[in-house]
């Protein structure tokens, strides 16, 4: 560097200097992705908020109507009814997380043919959602797969409901397809988290005489807290925006149309773009609020759990000692 400065005493232009080059690189590298992000995510978002205040179609004139679209969401039965359906999916999501935790724990200990079971359970996640929709359409049809299997177990055909038409069960059928699909992926995530727990902890616990249930409760559960809470947050968001399963399997008929399915109908069939935009913005607000509530809730529940392997009393004692030391230092300083 010094030899360069000796042979080139004239000042280098800003753009050739290190900082200048850095800035060029930064701008060149970030401008395209940020532009694409703006164009395809934030600009549609802004446009959608704008559309929601108008009564309009995709082409044609637009009439400003203010908050009317939002009021219509609550007035129309099919829209406000579809909001309730997300509760079914939430229940399914909770069942899914419990099952995933259970199988992850079993499969992370020594089990015969463990890899085979893992593969079979994870396999549904690899299939495209639309293909799954068609597979389940076939699965639930009267007299086909599910009915045949249950019949083989001795249940008479007359006792079996119409899985996709009967309003008492059709939502649960769709929820089952969703759980079927995602349980494997949750399970693999949990297995990964459980595997990352230090194995010497297990040995220490075994030496102390802990059985499997105690190992689960005191070693595994605390260590995978973060990923379980993340999964819960994602599941709640996912169940609010459930779309593929009802859209492909039943087309939203017979009372299975979730919020986004109804929104799609409103936007493309009835061509009420303003109302559809209002619906989308409304649900996005709900998702946003739900995520914030959950984050605060989990922060509160796990407020004392910064270090994973310290007991609560040890932490409290440490905090007290720190406060006392700070007080003493302040007094000494004065």
């Amino acid at each position, binding site marked *: 560097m010094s030899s360069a400065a000796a042979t080139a005493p004239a000042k280098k232009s800003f753009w050739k200097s290190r900082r200048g080059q850095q800035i060029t690189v*930064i701008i060149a590298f970030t401008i395209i992705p940020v532009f694409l992000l703006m*164009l395809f995510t934030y600009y549609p978002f802004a446009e*959608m908020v704008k559309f929601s205040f108008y009564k309009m179609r995709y082409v044609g004139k637009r009439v400003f109507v203010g908050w009317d679209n939002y009021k219509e969401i609550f007035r129309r039965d099919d829209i406000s009814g579809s909001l309730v359906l997300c509760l079914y999916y939430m229940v399914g999501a909770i069942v899914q997380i419990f099952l995933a935790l259970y199988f992850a724990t079993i499969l992370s200990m020594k089990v015969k043919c463990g890899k085979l079971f893992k593969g079979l359970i994870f396999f549904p996640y690899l299939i495209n959602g639309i293909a799954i929709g068609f597979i389940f359409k*076939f699965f639930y049809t009267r007299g086909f797969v599910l009915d045949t299997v249950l019949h083989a177990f001795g249940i008479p055909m007359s006792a079996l409901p119409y899985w996709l038409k009967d309003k008492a069960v059709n939502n649960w059928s769709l929820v089952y397809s969703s759980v079927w699909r995602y349980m494997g992926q949750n399970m693999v995530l949990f297995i990964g988290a459980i595997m990352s727990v230090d194995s010497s902890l297990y040995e220490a616990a075994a030496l102390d005489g802990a059985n499997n249930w105690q190992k689960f409760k005191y070693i595994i559960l605390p260590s995978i807290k973060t990923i379980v809470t993340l999964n819960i947050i994602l599941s709640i*968001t996912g169940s609010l925006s459930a779309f593929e399963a009802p859209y492909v399997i039943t087309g939203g008929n017979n009372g299975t149309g979730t919020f986004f399915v109804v929104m799609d109908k409103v936007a493309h069939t009835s061509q009420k773009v303003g109302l559809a935009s209002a619906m989308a913005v409304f649900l996005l607000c709900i998702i946003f609020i739900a995520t914030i509530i959950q984050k605060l809730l989990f922060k509160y529940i796990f407020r004392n759990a910064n270090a994973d392997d310290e007991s609560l009393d040890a932490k409290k004692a440490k905090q007290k000692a720190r406060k006392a030391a700070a007080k003493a230092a302040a007094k000494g300083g004065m």
Partner: protein
Amino acid sequence: MAARTASVHKIKHHYGPGFVIWTIFKYFTLILVSFTSVLPIVSCVITAFKSKTEYQNTNVMQLPKVWKISNFAEAFQVANMGRAFLNSLIILIFVLIGSILIGTSLAYALNRFKFVGNGLIRNLFTFAALLPAIAMQVSTYAIMSNLHLINHLYGYIFLMMGTDVISIYIFIQYSRSTGTSCCRS
């Protein structure tokens, strides 16, 4: 030495009845869930090989007597699968190249350099990852039709490159783990 080997002995397991019940339950649930996981697919595969009459007359779970492959040939033609696969291949190549180029360059710029917009850009991408894509469809359709990108393959490619925020996330994570020492040297 002799004393140490003498003190090492195998731990004897006492299999009480609780353990046996738990093991049975464990394997039963595993087998049950594996079975339900593959059942829908298996029934589809079996039916794909049956002829129409056999399909109407036999139980769904029975293996076909004659493995009819002509169903696949017919599906290939009727659904125009050749064109569909070609489209998928084209989209895959372009989106992969574009996404990797854009994603890695962005991750590199965000990780190596400190500049004013760094945190802002990260937060923009994080927030964008939360928005479900379905919610945006209404206005995305309007924008795309204004740009005359509907019904064209390149429109879809362009859209895919722009909405792939998850992959950018992953690139940022990975570039954090690559050291700066090789660049310094």
